[in-house]
């Protein structure tokens, strides 16, 4: 099989991932899109490894590392998303706009209790 096919496929998968990150508004879907990007890279690494007949199998080894780290990343990411969801009852990224450029003035929120109640 020519190298071009898996490489182009990986490139397309990566592009789909980028599109997902930019277009999706739900944090979970964005997370899934990032995973798609990582897996596109995995495909690339394995394809190059096989094409180059790498004696050290660096590409395949790298893939194992990427899979492990991606799993850790998802575990952590889901925990953060879950925390945000529990506090705000939404995982929509558009609703997370307390940190932004324009000036809301000095906060009059005196404690976290009222901050939650004001939601």
């Amino acid at each position, binding site marked *: 099989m020519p190298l071009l096919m898996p490489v182009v496929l990986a490139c397309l998968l990566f592009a789909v991932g980028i599109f997902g*990150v930019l277009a999706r508004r739900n944090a979970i879907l964005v997370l899934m899109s990032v995973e798609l990007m990582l897996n596109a*890279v995995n495909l690339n690494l394995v394809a190059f490894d096989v094409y180059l*007949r790498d004696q050290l199998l660096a590409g395949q080894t790298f893939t194992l590392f990427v899979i492990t*780290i991606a799993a850790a990343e998802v575990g952590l*990411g889901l925990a953060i998303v879950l925390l945000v969801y529990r*506090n*705000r009852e939404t995982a929509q990224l558009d609703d997370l706009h307390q940190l932004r450029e324009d000036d809301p003035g000095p906060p009059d*929120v005196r404690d*976290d209790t009222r901050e939650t109640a004001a939601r």
Partner: protein
Amino acid sequence: MSALSVSATFAAAEFQTPSIEYSKLMPMLIVFGVALVGVLIEAFMGRTGRHQVQLILSIAGLVAAFVSVTMLAGDNQIAAVGAVAVDGPALFLQGTILLLAIPGVLTMAERSLDRGGVFTSAGSSTPGSEHERVLTATGVTQTEVFPLTMFAVGGMLLFPAANDLLTMFVALEVLSLPLYLLCGLARRRRLLSQEASLKYFLLGAFSSAFFLYGIALLYGYSGTVRLSGIAEAVSSNSGSDTLLMTGTALLAVGLLFKVGAAPFHSWTPDVYQGAPTPITGFMAACTKVAAFGALLRVLYVGLGGLAWQWEPVMWGVAILTMVVGSVVALTQTDVKRMLAYSSIAHAGFILTGLVATDTVDPDTGAVLGVSSVLFYLLAYGFITIGAFAVVTLVRDAGGEATHLSQWAGLARRSPLVAAVFTLFLAAFAGIPLTSGFTGKFAVFSAAIAGDAAPLVVIGVVMSAVAAFFYFRVVVLMFFNAPAPDGPAVAVPSPLTTVAITLSVAVTVLLGVWPTQVLDLADRASQFVR
């Protein structure tokens, strides 16, 4: 390649046990060891005294790791079968990170400013819930911030020392993942903090996917992930240029994101504002040091033969970063956000030094691009940690008062704190007799030696713009009347006091008497290849 030939490859290459020079990796091993012990303490030790034990253990680990870095000083070799470089820049930056982490951990451990400390009692509890009230009333607090910080420090130590792209990627993730969590653990303004954490996580994961894609393409180009192997492939000009160029560009995106350079800076203000202030200081200082170390190594060791290609791009990025950081900071009304934009501007100033590439000082033999950046990072790190530590002291009933209007007339309430903050702002602006001036002088003279004079002109103009917004804060503190219900300056425990004093001392010392450290940076400027 069929399964058969894969197994044939295995049979052909005799398996050899890798030799690992543990003594050369001591700083990292100590820090990771302390982090693991910290996790065990968190799990098995009773809650009384856990905070003190964790604090003492972390500080002792950082000091021990720093001592082992000084013992390795002068080493110039590659350890762990080519995975880790133990050379001048790596050791200098490791020492810098460890020195910066000490005041960083001290400010994190502060408990007298806020009842129960800066961090939430339990990361999983909802603000204002019954669970949280019980935890606050009984004083139960988890102290997992210490092991998390140590894991992040360990990743930061490995990041600038990584000699192949696999190690570099693992180090990047090991330093980033704990930071994502730490950002979301603030006791006050938890929603902001969690929002910062989520934004940092999503953008960080997005950028590391680009970094990884860049690695895959460079691997496809050169057939190896080792930086020296990539340098060989570049110099022999074998393989496809498309793979090399796209790979380099994508790799640079990932690194420039961590550095906080424009146009990949958009996460910085939001995350710096929302994260707990001690974490912001730690992150702003140490992550930048580690990421610039990795960027230097990739560009100089791996892609040095390609300098004529990436140099113009770095020019553009440096100019854009300086302009965006300085100009947008003018409109900020929040102290932490303003400092975030200032850190973006400083990333631009550091990039001007990096552009000097392999220009060698004829007198000392120092590689100017490296030595000036090393010095700047040390100076900038201490100013940043100190400035954010001061921000934690200005408080009202809602916690830290970070809105600039609340800082009016601060000098009347506490002349000392206002004076210290003025010193840090002057150092950020690059006023003589502060470390900021020496650092800017070093990077700008390196850039001139590297034929980048136009860049220096822009750098100086942007320093002037930046000085304007720094001194606006000084005027606000000293010459405005304080509001009657304005914030007070809290008296911290010795922990924060020590951290701020240390930062002030380094800032003044590196401004008045920088020769020793400049010499050290000169001597440490050779990468092992």
